[in-house]
């Protein structure tokens, strides 16, 4: 077993009610939930592996693939939707060569969609890490990404 998981599990009692805090701790350590680690959690809590996976997939907070260095969040809230956020998402997918929810092979970017980031006046909006890019146009996508290359 990975030493890091061992250390995490050592601070829990092994009761099935601890499943979410353990998943969170493991994700905090690894950046996502690796399969081998989820299997260790199942063993530790004496619950079926399928159940651990079922719980983890229920929550949007858990990831099952390694995350990129930079997190791109495309807002698809009402205002952004109306102002063509889907086209922005398409452009990002094309540019990065990945689908929404995936990570680039160089592990630089992860791409996902969110419901609303609360900057409707700037629609359409994309957030990369903590930076907000408002009134974005498809032709500017490449330029924005370039800042992180």
């Amino acid at each position, binding site marked *: 077993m990975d030493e890091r998981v061992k250390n995490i599990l050592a601070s829990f009692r092994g009761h099935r009610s601890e499943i979410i805090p353990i998943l969170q701790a493991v994700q905090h350590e690894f950046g996502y939930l690796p*399969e081998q680690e*989820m*299997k260790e959690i199942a063993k530790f809590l*004496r619950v*079926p*592996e*399928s*159940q*651990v*996976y*079922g719980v983890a*997939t*229920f929550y949007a907070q858990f990831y*099952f693939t390694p995350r990129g260095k930079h997190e791109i969040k495309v807002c698809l809230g009402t205002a952004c939707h109306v102002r063509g956020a889907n086209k922005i998402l398409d452009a990002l997918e094309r540019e990065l060569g990945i689908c929404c929810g995936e990570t680039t092979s160089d592990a630089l970017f992860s791409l996902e969609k969110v419901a609303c980031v609360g900057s409707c006046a700037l629609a359409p909006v994309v957030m990369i890490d903590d930076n907000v890019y408002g009134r974005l146009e498809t032709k500017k996508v490449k330029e924005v990404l370039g800042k992180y290359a």
Partner: protein
Amino acid sequence: MTQVNLTIDQLDVMAEEGTTILQAALANNIYIPHLCSHPELRPAGICRLCLVEVEGQLLVSCSTAVAEGMVVQTATLEVEKIRRLAVELMVAEHERTCLSCGKNNDCKLQEICRFVGVDEKRLASLQPAERKLVDSSHPFITKDESKCVLCGICVRTCREIQGAEAIDFISRGYATKIGTFGARPLQESNCEACGECVIRCPVGALLPRGFARPSREVETICPFCGTGCGLFLGVRGDRIVSVRGNPGHTTNRGRLCVKGRFGWTFVHSQERLKTPLIKRKGRLEEASWEEALELVTAKLGRYRGEEVGVFASAKTTNEEIYLTSKFARVVLKTNNIANVAHLCHANTVRGLLPVTGSAGMTVPVWQIKEAACLFVTGCNPTEAHPIIGLEIRQAVRSGAKLIIANPREIPLCRLPHLRLPLRPGTDLALLLGIAKTILEEKLLDEAFIAERTLNFDTFKASLEKFSLAEAEAVSGVPAERIREAARLYATSKPALIFWSMGITQHSHGHKNVWALAHLAMMTGNYGKAGAGVAPLRGHNNVQGATDMGATPAWYPGYQLCPGYELYPRFGKFASSKEKFEAAWGCELPETPGLSTVKQFNPRARGWGGPEMWDLPQKIKAWYIIGTDLVNSVAGSHGVRQNLEAAEFVVVQDIFLTETAKLAHVVLPAASFAEKDGTFTATDRRVQRIRRAVTPPGLAWPDWRIICELAGRMGYGDKFAYQDPAQIMEEIASVVPLYGGISYGRLEKEELRWPCYGQEHGGTPVLHVDRFLRVEKGEFWPLEYELSPELPDEEYPLVMTTGRLLPHFHYNMTAKVEGIEALGGKDFVEINEEDAAALQLKSGDMVRLVSRRGSLLSRAKVSKAILPGVVFKPIHKGAVNLLTSADFIDPMGTTPNTKVCPVRLEKA
């Protein structure tokens, strides 16, 4: 049970306290639509279709218990409105291609729609845009997510019935679906392919592949392992088109494993033998029965006594094995009659005769769940005896303690258990350690020992010098854990011990068996429900093969042959030769016969005195029925050489096996589905199998072939039977254990031997007041013994062998395409430390080399096996080229298959 009075839709109804409103309504022919409720599963209350109104309150009837005076209305306006909406939403999400759906007319959702009445116009606007892909990657199960109604019956079946827990709800909201860990295909998960979820799916989301609706069903018994599950073969015309577990059978209660449910297609395999074959100029060519039988009569008829060897098949019926045994002794005048039990449980059977008088499993399979402690050693029930594996899982879930002794982490290890990871071949040291602890800590059942057993002091004295430290040093299991196991076993009663090849396939296997029987006697675990020993028999009728005397040691019914008075206490039973000479009406051979390994390796050491160790090969001809000896006998190279050198070999089988290819004449036999007869299950239950279809081509049932040959050889009068029922009458007349068994009774009764007469109701629990045959159980002195062949620098690893879940040995399941797809890949399992030292990773080609041969396989690197040990499944890759037939057990003659030193090379 208290009865409760209530009203459902103005109807006065009585129901048992604790039943649900839904159950009470259905029992009184009041239909309430329901989807997620299943009579065999706990209520879930997921689908909300079974809403009813009780005093103005809306309740889910599948999860609400009845109460006195309750007034239930199943169809108020409010209920109907909500129910219709729920159904409409469900139908809107459902792929409505009913005409092409395999579940059409058998679909719960259709049934509900017809009852509720669904408005197509309202649905039109709700049709989901996206048709999800149908997953047909699994060889036996089609999964169509677009038809799934998310009732969770499959999830609960997998958890509550099967205990595999391979699937669950994953994701949420619209994206919710049923999936495995990591959303992988079923075959890459813990799924055991039992198909239990498939048969319970209320809609067409899960469908069995290749099944069709039968026009009639035939009740019979599964032809694979020895558990003896009941099933129905669904037949259309002259073809089997489906299989269904028999819900009324007490062993499996409707459940089946992957082999039982999906493995039947071998019956209709194109590779079945359809005509007799005769070898001409080195090639097997088709021949007529007349030619083949004439040739066999002329050639086989030349050999008598020690010149000929006969093999009965553990896959054939009791009647056929009885005839094989009679044919060998009466017609060929030989006691060289053997069967595959000599490779597996002969150490149990012959070993236990002088200890407890019988090696039968002491209790019925359905009593497993009554045990408080299950000691599982040297076996892997989940894979080799899956339905027994399920019973163990259920017992453990309801609180039974589980002890597992195995060098591998078997699937049962997913349950709470105490694990004893011993090195292969050190079972005796471990078991003596447990016995020593029971002695030292006074956990004995003194009264039982005093009243029911003999010679306890001799056994006790033999343990004097043995210490727990020695047990630890030899077996590798920490002494404290051995003590813990001893306490758990001795204090949780009733306790049941399961074992199989891991215990018996050693050249000292009978001692392992003695130790286990001694543990059960020390703790008084005999003669009670759920207590005793459970040696799990491998073949569907290997129990019958032993019962019917397909062994040199006894005639049918364990009635000893001359030269086999090995057991001092059996003096009074010494030889039943005269009895059988009278019964069969002719003189029987006097010379003691040889069992399986000895027939092919007369120089094997261990059995008999040293004068028996270096025998010359006297056998010149063999008659082999339904046994693939070239694959199954340890040191298989020797078998091949012997068969090639033999003057005449006849093989009678359903497929052209590796053994049949070496024959001079091959006779085509009928499979289990093409004849009548009986099989005896591992728990001594004698059960009817019934003809469902016609044998392919010219194939005949084995009993008919044997009778025909006997007739041509001049013994027609002694082999004149109209049908198998008549053979069973003869068996009952000469075998006291089967004295009360007849086809008439088997139609109505569940009979386990001993069943002494028409009035005797059979024996569910063995040894109740006295031990069978020996009256009192006897302890024997035991000392630890090393395996004869140990690892050294050249061969540093120990190879051990076993079965995989989807497969049954070499021939039957290998003809089933789906099973090949599920588990067709051969591998050798190796611990990650050993793999790292050899720079191996999973999937690498490796050469496995022993002192006798080598074979190629692929590495499977794992944590589930002890360092220093490798595991090789028996099904592929001729594993017995590596094992040794040089050392056999002094009592059971079983070879030392489970400890085979090897080395692994990167290939």
